[in-house]
């Protein structure tokens, strides 16, 4: 018998570039990170009475796909199969897929019909989206309330391309941050820091102070920055 | 139900319970928090205490004092009607003013006080203070108060609120006239014990004696009550006396 408190659903949606350039170290780091995230979010969930974590992984190369075909799945039930890299970098197809999901369940999406929590979106790419600009696809996303309230992070993987950076910045605009990963060997740790920190901060619902608290976004940003600076310290 | 046993036409006696509360500036913080809490907790279980006191109706009054003494309710209230509103702290500690108000209260109803004109049960007075009066003539006012017959027969207790000096303790001892009725523990259960023992014993003693007037009989009555109480209090080991 499922005797437990009813919790809200916190959707964590990870959008992974799996074009050919991601082959090798980069995709291996992503796969490693996803496995760790599943385990750690499952543990975090047991010690949290506010939210249950639900995972969605969208991969894109020639076209966008849902990993395992799952639109969304309770984190403890998510079974990862390794993502393999090949093909183009059709980011716009991922945007279309994402827009499809960021709707209420009753309209075919994955967001709850009532009482939802703003989702966490993480987009990672090593650059050069095939289609540019993606005016239509971006505008379609920005019309969705769930997209606008989402906490958004972008990871620029060993990227030296202003166009892609701008693209990530536009994606996270107003409600998130773009993190640069200069060294693919650190990718796994950076992904984990972002997803786990954002999940932790968004799920913990701290006590309120009379002087007012900083926004969740600001809090996540601060903690992510702090954790990342520790990565840097350790590495160099 | 007990009324009927007492016979027709005899009203239930009133048992007056009076809290005298110091809410001066020095009581700010934990002290007043503890006092507010103690009174509300006692009120929580007052229906049980009333049940144990079958042949008297408990009436509750409260007098607060800081710069001046003020009644919380103009008239004594029944258990159901007495609602406690947390006191805040303010001003000096005019214990003299409180004693003067108390003296008026301990006067017959026909003379403007709250004591019955005929008969009656000795009231219970519980003083709650940290013993730091700022009215230095409080001893004189206590002397006048002590002349009141109803004060003599009243069952007087004092709750020592975080007192650590002899001087402060002495203020409370002077009021009760008996160091053994100055209490340092003020949990609801301990207070219940005090009120309960007094209420039960007082009403029992009362029903044994033909009439209780101010003066001779009352003093005897009070002595009997005190003796019984003392005996019962001996059995109580988790209250520090």
């Amino acid at each position, binding site marked *: 018998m499922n005797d437990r408190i009813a919790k809200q659903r916190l959707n964590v949606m990870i959008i992974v570039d799996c074009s050919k350039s991601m082959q090798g170290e980069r995709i291996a780091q992503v796969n490693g990170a996803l496995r760790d995230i599943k385990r750690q979010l499952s543990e975090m969930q047991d010690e949290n*009475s506010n939210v249950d974590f639900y995972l969605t992984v969208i991969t894109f190369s020639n076209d966008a796909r849902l990993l395992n075909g799952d639109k969304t799945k309770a984190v403890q039930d998510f079974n990862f199969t390794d993502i393999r890299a090949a093909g183009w970098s059709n980011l716009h197809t991922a945007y279309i897929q994402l827009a499809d999901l960021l709707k209420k369940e009753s309209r075919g999406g994955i967001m709850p019909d009532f009482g*939802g929590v703003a989702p966490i979106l993480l987009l990672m790419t090593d650059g050069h989206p095939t289609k540019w600009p993606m005016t239509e696809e971006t505008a379609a996303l920005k019309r969705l309330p769930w997209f606008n309230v989402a906490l958004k992070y972008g990871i620029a993987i060993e990227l030296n391309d202003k166009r892609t950076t701008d693209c990530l910045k536009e994606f996270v605009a107003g409600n998130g941050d773009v993190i640069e990963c200069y060294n693919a060997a650190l990718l796994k740790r950076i992904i984990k820091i972002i997803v786990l920190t954002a999940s932790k901060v968004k799920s913990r619902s701290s006590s309120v102070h009379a002087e007012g608290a900083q926004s969740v976004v600001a809090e996540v940003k601060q903690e992510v920055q702090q954790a990342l600076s520790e990565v840097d310290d350790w590495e160099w | 139900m007990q009324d009927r046993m007492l016979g027709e036409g005899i009203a239930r006696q009133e048992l007056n319970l009076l809290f005298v509360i110091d809410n001066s500036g020095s009581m700010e913080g934990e002290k007043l928090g503890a006092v507010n809490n103690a009174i509300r*907790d006692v009120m929580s279980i007052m229906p049980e205490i009333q049940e144990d006191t079958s042949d008297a109706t408990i009436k509750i009054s409260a007098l607060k004092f800081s710069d001046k003494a003020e009644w919380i309710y103009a008239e004594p209230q029944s258990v159901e009607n007495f609602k406690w509103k947390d006191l805040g702290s303010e001003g000096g500690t005019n214990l003299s003013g409180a004693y003067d108000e108390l003296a008026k209260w301990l006067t017959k109803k026909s003379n403007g006080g709250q004591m019955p004109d005929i008969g009656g049960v000795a009231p219970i007075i519980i003083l709650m203070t940290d013993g730091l009066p700022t009215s230095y003539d409080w001893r004189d006012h206590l002397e006048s108060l002590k002349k009141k017959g109803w004060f003599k027969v009243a069952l007087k207790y004092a709750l020592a609120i975080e007192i650590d000096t002899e001087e402060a303790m002495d203020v409370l001892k002077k009021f009760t006239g008996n160091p053994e009725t100055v209490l340092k523990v003020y949990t609801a259960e301990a207070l219940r014990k005090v009120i309960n023992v007094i209420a039960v014993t007082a009403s029992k003693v009362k029903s044994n004696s033909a009439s209780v007037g101010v003066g001779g009989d009352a003093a005897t009555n009070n002595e009997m009550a005190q003796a019984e109480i003392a005996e019962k209090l001996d059995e109580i080991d988790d209250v520090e006396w």
Partner: protein
Amino acid sequence: MLFNKNDEIDLGDKKVVIREPLGEGGQGEVYLVDYDGGKYALKVYKNEESSDFRYNLKNNIEKGSPSEHFLWPKKLIDFDDGRIGYLMDVRPKNFVSFVSYLTGKNTFASREVMLSWCINLCTAFKKLHEMGYSYQDLNDGSFFLGPDTGALLICDNDNVTADKKNLGILGKMRYMAPEIVRNEMMPDVHSDRFSLGVILFMALCLGNPYEGERLKNYDIIDEKAEYELYGSNPIFVYHKTDKSNRPIRGYHSSVLRRWAYIPLYVKEAFHRTFVDGLSDRENGRTTEIEWLRLLMRYRDELVRCPHCGYEFIYGFGEKAPVDKCPNCGKPKKEVCVLELGKHKIVLDIGKKLTAAHLDKFSAEYNRAVATVIANKNNPSLWGVKLDLSSPVAIKDANGVEKTIPGNGVIPIVRNLKIQFSENLIGGIK
């Protein structure tokens, strides 16, 4: 993290040595440390705290813990950089978080144990309030429990202040009293009492008392939604007349299932706090001492279904008689009942009499002084095993009297009278 393994903090006379990180919250970090030959937990505040906060913490340390249920600060530490922290005892391993109970990861061994935990909780807050303190930030993260014993530990005691004093903390949404959410009052004893009601409701029903159908009005629970749900217009899910916010079928399943079998007098107590207590914050909210009486009564009337093991109430105070197990539907077993003053105790195996049963002036609501046991050789014979310092006298239906020593066993037979003390005679029905 602020510290690494083996970092040393010099306190002049003694040293604190960092062993490992134990946890991290919004406010600070907690480490396992060595100090003065023992293991302690060290909490360090991330930000510089106000001098008022420091003074209050110091004062609380000097006053000492209200009861054994609090993981109370023991020693204040000032760091060179202006930060402060304190040492406290380490939470023993056999305690699990209240949150993990809510999420279904851990459960209480029985309903009786759960009620004992609730009774511990009320005893602890009663004690805290008797000392003139208020806790100010009761929420799901503050509590730990022994799943088999009902033992309680309360953490995060750093916001405890004298009643009506405030250091700025308001509390956590979903636990805060509405007047605090609306910013009309600062936390005090009365908002503590509201939050205590929420925690008890969560313990008993596994849900929040204000989360029901009205959630459907909101696509997203943002600050505005929270303000309305918990602040400006909170409606208790089991409000007697306003039925607009009942638990949602298929979503709040545990609340729906559990509320049905809670005794009426406990339901009334929740209704007082969550309905009457909204407008009358000082006298409308069920107090700890009232909870203690009700929860004790609830525990006293629990009986275990011999067929499925489900624990349910005998039903003394219910409108409709309880004659079958709500879980498996088989008939309720007939058990002797001990009537003792105002108490009615269903003498099922394992049932305990506490000090508070025998002495109405006792504040020991969880100290067992007798337990119902089955005879080893003949399990159909039941008795009350005493753990008292003095003997009790019994008299059976035929008037035969006997003295049972303080550590003896009273046989459970109908119409037996038990004299526990001069004024306290119980009867088995």
